């Protein structure tokens, strides 16, 4: 009986104690007509050995290609130590630290995480995590509506250059609460949100604006100008950032005169494997002024009976288990283990290691851009600066090019035509520090080859 330790004698003794004659008797309060039959769709058990064999075969099917896709999930080198320590039973198989005295490990770690993340974002405080970047953005929108007492509109400005999946998840999650998302157009030549695009919104009541840095196209926005403009309009500013980029780029807390009010994003680049999309985690930071509107768990430092420092869940009155229908969010289980990994990752790299890694992503991307645009008909889709993704225009349908690259075991990027009908010939290409010069050459040669094939 996999995982069930009972011997026949145990079962008998237990039944005797309970005073019934069979396990079946324990279900006697359940109406008999509700009892389930065979589970026909659940196959016979496999031993761990057979299971691993199957899983190795399945995993091998998906392996081996060189990956240049980013679009919200990024391949970085994860130091071996990160998950060795993260998967220690004491971290991995504990739950939410309700019993603080028996959970100081997790609690102190999350306090350290909050400190690191707040500092990386140049914000006052951080929570202990939300599900992912996209749902985190939705929580930020809900939070902004609660926090901006000056605004009555429940309307939020979101540039079209924000990740399309983030925007759709945002919509799904906030629309039931009558919050309206208003799209801001991006400039087709720079791929960014220009102040000029915003002029038309001036004077109207908006609760908040979302500013992504870098944006979905990998382009760098003029965050200072946008932040100051929004604050002048009495909106809250929600920064949406890639935390890896923040080791090099100016942090949201320092944007413009006053900095962003809320910052969210996906923590995956910080030591969390791509793993088909999750578990990642949404991080969220904000200014002290609005911390009581923040969703999710928060750890605070306090003292014990002897005055010794210790850590505990705090501001629980915001949460569903205390406040129920009046909670700031329904979130309960969060993404703790991914946060554990990120905390260890940031400790291992430190500020300089993170900046170097981040810088090499940038540098490798510039190298690849130079290589690819040396091919006839291939060009950057936008002017301006970018971080480690770049929209590359190709002289063919992006979907076709990508398909043919995949046949050559190069996953060439994300087809922007899927979400932007004007960009059907544009590929969003990502390069991180994991790519060598040889890898970049492989991509270039494959692309040249593919374009040749298509055009011949």
């Amino acid at each position, binding site marked *: 009986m*996999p*995982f*069930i330790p*009972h011997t026949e004698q145990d079962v008998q003794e237990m039944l005797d104690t309970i005073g019934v004659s069979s*396990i079946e008797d*324990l279900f*006697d309060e359940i109406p008999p007509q509700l009892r*389930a039959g065979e*589970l026909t*769709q*659940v196959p016979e058990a496999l031993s761990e050995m057979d*299971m*691993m064999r199957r*899983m190795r075969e*399945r*995993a091998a099917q998906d392996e081996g290609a060189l990956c240049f896709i980013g679009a919200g999930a990024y391949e970085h*080198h994860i130091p071996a130590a990160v998950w060795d320590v993260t998967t*220690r039973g*004491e971290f*991995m198989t*504990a739950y*939410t630290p309700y*019993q603080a005295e028996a*959970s100081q490990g997790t609690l102190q770690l999350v*306090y350290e995480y909050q*400190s690191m993340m707040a500092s990386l974002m140049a914000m006052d405080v951080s929570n*202990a995590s939300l599900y992912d970047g996209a749902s985190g953005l939705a929580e930020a929108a809900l939070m902004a509506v609660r926090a901006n007492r000056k605004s009555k509109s429940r309307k939020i400005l979101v540039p079209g250059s924000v990740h399309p999946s983030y925007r759709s*998840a945002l919509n*799904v999650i906030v629309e039931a609460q009558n919050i309206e998302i208003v799209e801001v157009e991006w400039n087709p030549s720079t791929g960014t949100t220009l102040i000029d695009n915003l002029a038309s919104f001036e004077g109207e009541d908006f609760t908040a604006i979302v500013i992504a840095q870098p944006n979905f196209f990998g382009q*760098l926005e003029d965050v*200072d100008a946008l932040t100051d403009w929004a604050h002048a309009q009495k909106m809250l500013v929600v920064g949406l950032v890639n935390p890896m980029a923040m080791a090099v*780029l*100016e*942090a949201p807390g320092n944007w413009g005169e006053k900095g962003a009010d809320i910052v969210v994003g996906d923590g995956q680049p910080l030591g969390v494997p791509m793993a088909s*999309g*999750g578990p990642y*985690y949404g991080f969220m930071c904000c200014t002290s002024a609005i*911390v009581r509107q923040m969703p999710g*768990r928060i750890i*605070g430092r*306090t003292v014990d*009976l002897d005055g010794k420092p210790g850590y505990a869940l705090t501001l*629980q*009155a915001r949460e*569903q*288990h205390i406040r129920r229908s*009046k909670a700031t969010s329904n979130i309960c*289980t969060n*993404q703790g283990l*991914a946060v554990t990994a990120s905390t260890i990752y940031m400790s291992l*790299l430190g*500020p300089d*290691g*993170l*900046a*170097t890694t981040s*810088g090499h992503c940038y540098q490798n991307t510039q190298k690849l851009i130079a290589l690819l645009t040396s091919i006839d008909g291939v060009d950057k889709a936008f002017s301006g*600066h970018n971080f480690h993704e770049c929209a590359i225009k190709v002289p063919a349908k992006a979907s076709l090019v990508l*398909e043919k690259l995949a046949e050559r075991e190069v996953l060439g990027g*994300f087809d922007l035509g899927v979400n932007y009908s004007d960009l059907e010939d544009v590929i969003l290409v990502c390069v991180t520090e994991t790519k060598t010069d040889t890898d970049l050459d492989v991509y270039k040669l494959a692309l040249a080859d593919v374009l040749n094939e298509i055009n011949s």
Partner: protein
Amino acid sequence: MLIFEQSRSGRKAFAQSPSVAADLSGLPESFIRKEKPGLPEVSELQAIRHYTNLSRKNFSIDTQFYPLGSCTMKYNPRGALAAAILPGMLNRHPLAPESHSQGFLACLHDLQEMLKDVTGMKGVSLTPMAGAQGEFAGVAMIRAYHDARDDDGRTEILVPSAAHGTNPATAVMCGFKVREVPVGSDGDVDVETLKTLVGPQTAGIMLTNPSTCGVFERRIEEIASIIHDVGGLLYYDGANLNAILGKVKPGDMGFDVMHMNLHKTFATPHGGGGPGSGPVAVNERLLPYLPTPIVGKDGSDDAPTYRWLTDKDIPETIGNLSAFMGNAGILVRAYVYATLLGREGMHRVGEYATLNANYMAKKLEKEGFQLAYPDRRATHEFIITLSKLTKEHGVNAMDVAKRLLDYNQHAPTTYFPLLVPECHLIEPTETESKEAMDEYIAAMVSILKEAESDAEMVRGAPYTQPVKRLDDVKAARELDLAWKG
């Protein structure tokens, strides 16, 4: 000591990043960060030593019995981890083309099929990232259903007073008003009152069964009729599915939609707070609204190909709830768990979980503890109330919980459900041995004696942990949420 207190400016002791700085000359100054972030500067050894030692300050399933009610802290098979971290699984990009995703998609599809079977439902979407997001998806589908029928007046979701906090919070997030349904002294929903609360304003009801009172809602079919008769739908909160896995299917009880907590029922690790995974399952009525993405299968069983179903396939979907496929890695672990259990093993889960809980309940009762529902069968969990102890000796449920830590036993869930005073909600799970439970019971008996002879001592517990009892009031009043250096 905090990791920051071990940091020294200028320390660079790692082999983790390229040693030469990158060329950033192409980036204008204005974009570039001016001040270093305050991350610690420690050596690899310091980081490992620090976090290894921190981990040692945690209780966990791997180190202690952890009967946290409503959380199903069962053994997390290491084989599931081993499979999920195979390079092909770990390094797959979420947007990799389907040609490079067949292995992963096959696992997800198999899991969908198994979950349909155990829930008795018609469709499954794996995307919700925890129970609460599953609830959101489910209630949003209820909303979409009424909307699609232009049934506009349905503004209320019913929730029993014993329900988990996520239920009312979710209903509100989905734009509904919450109406509480009282629970009777036998732990079942008060059906007579329920009848008076329903009407054309009723969008649906959210129920767990077994309920958070640790008893099976016996009149569930009647409740289903009442709700359905007024045009509402039934949402099943699957947090307690472990009690009935392989024994009863929620779909057969009349539920229209539900979520599962794979991190409970399907043994994926709780990670110190998460990640979890909360797939939703629906019957025919709600099939069109399932959240995306879902894995579809084409071709024959011998030579299947798998692909993503998106809003093109499911035009009325409520949409996506995350950037990609939810907590994909957790889904892989759950799939592996189901594979290791197999059909027989799946049937056994509910049986042994129930056996363990009933055994503990009966033994504790024999030792003088008061069951909240003494006339009921326990399900996979049960409640004791310590009101008498509190009244007679001033030792409350929290004191006993803290004292348990000194006995190297993780405390059960305390003060939930709110309607039972001074309660402990105890869930042993099927993977614990009789010996482990007997030890816990012995600790409880011993604490009972201590409370009688030295209540003061018990109120001061714990004494053996890295810290003594913490000042929660100070934590909330004098907020210290980030280290300031």
